[in-house]
């Protein structure tokens, strides 16, 4: 029997869904409202030197990579389901485009993080 590659996508979907359910509201508040409007948080928090130091630390890299990649894999699977529900059946073509884009963004995030150095 041919092995299915679907479980991989479902694990990524689940991990991304859980991570965004637990931290999404806080992250959006910090990066999109708190820091830009200086609400509860100082704009200094996300200054260039601070963010560079964060992204150069191995733990910071891990956090940034996990958030970007897992959020995207989670969203991709649901967007494919959504397309299916509106009559664009998840054939090889739409799955290839969707998962391909998610993979491309994942590799881009990994490359950018590594390029920043340690």
């Amino acid at each position, binding site marked *: 029997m041919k092995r299915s590659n679907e479980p991989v996508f479902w694990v990524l979907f689940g991990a991304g869904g859980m991570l965004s359910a637990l931290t*999404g509201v806080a992250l*959006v508040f*910090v990066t999109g409202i*708190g820091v830009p409007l200086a609400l509860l948080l100082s704009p200094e928090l996300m200054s260039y030197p601070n963010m560079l130091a964060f992204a150069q630390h191995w733990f910071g890299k891990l956090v940034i990579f996990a958030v970007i990649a897992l959020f995207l894999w989670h969203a991709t699977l649901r967007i494919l389901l*959504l397309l299916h529900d509106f009559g664009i059946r998840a054939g090889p073509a739409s799955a290839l485009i969707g998962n391909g884009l998610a993979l491309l963004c994942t590799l881009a995030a990994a490359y950018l993080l590594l390029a920043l150095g340690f």
Partner: protein
Amino acid sequence: MSAQTDKRHPYLRPIRGWWKRDRYYIRYLAMEATSILIALYALILLFGLLRLGQGEAAFNGWLETLRSPPSVALHSLLLLVFAYHSYSWFKVMPKTLPAIYWRGAKLPQPVITRIGVSAAVIVNLLVIILFTGLQS
């Protein structure tokens, strides 16, 4: 889609407007549609990472964009969408898990949802507290 696309499934029932038939379907679609904005948020962060790598001027430009009213409006919407995602994620979770037994009885679905939503509230608050603590 009623075109003949597959020999083994010669007839595809038209599905246009299916989601208007039942309020449950609309809630289901709202849950699925959160993914579009979650992807958008991930792309905003990915773009920030790209600008970070391009140096201080580029990154400050990204920060400047985040301060613009359209961006703040978008992030306010994102806040609601992520909150709804959180709620719907734990609302559906008991249906995706094998039965959990505790003290000899099956844990009821609403209890699992309440535990999940409480965990989400606590972890989100901890993340915000962590960030407010980092700056002092």
